[in-house]
């Protein structure tokens, strides 16, 4: 199974470890994956809303 690794700054890793403990995650990995999933979903959502807006403008439904 392909398991990519991402390099991050040591100080950031320590910050994330601390944050994951405060937030009650079982591991820093779980915390990071969750945060990244959420961030990616937000970006995708924003892109989709933008494409929908452009389509609605093209069809004359919004200004």
């Amino acid at each position, binding site marked *: 199974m392909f398991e990519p690794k991402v390099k991050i700054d040591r100080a950031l890793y320590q910050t994330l470890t601390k944050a994951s403990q405060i937030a009650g995650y079982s591991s820093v990995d779980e915390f990071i994956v969750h945060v990244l999933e959420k961030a990616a979903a937000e970006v995708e*959502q924003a892109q989709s809303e933008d494409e929908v807006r452009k389509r609605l403008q093209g*069809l004359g439904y*919004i200004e």
Partner: protein
Amino acid sequence: MITVVSGLPRSGTSMMMQILQAGGLPLLCDQERPADENNPRGYFEYQKVRRLAADNSWLAEAEGHAIKVVSQLLYHLPRQFEYCIVFMRRDLTEVIRSQEQMLASRQVESGLEQQAMREHFTRHLDALEIWMSKQPNMRVFPCDFSRMIADPARLAPAISAFLGILLDPERMASAIDPTLYRQKAK
């Protein structure tokens, strides 16, 4: 209470406006966008809706009426009113094909491939559905376009009951013209 007919463009919102009007519900619309080959019976739009994101100060005009508000603009409805939303759902393949035809007639590039547009619409509709379910001033009646055409006698009374308004179900059903169902996925 304001009745809102919503959904993606080409999902049957104009048809639903005709159905409600036939049933006896007054519409808030104007003739700014005339009927054309895409909507031979008219669009039933109110031009102020197009600028809803910038100006919603006029919405009190819609009290006691039905008004058409395209899906993405629902987020801009002011909170001080109660809304009963008839939300049209239609097979996305049909919606996208019909939109592309309309874009071509307006001489506008459709831009994205159908599959990409489908993914964007799916994400948009999913998020909107969750958002609407959390709004205390909104009630939603999801209405499937093809079912409305196939079985109006059953759905018309259900819509009337949802709105809490005595509408004429026979007249509502008779407002449907199945020959205008031109983009079929199957």
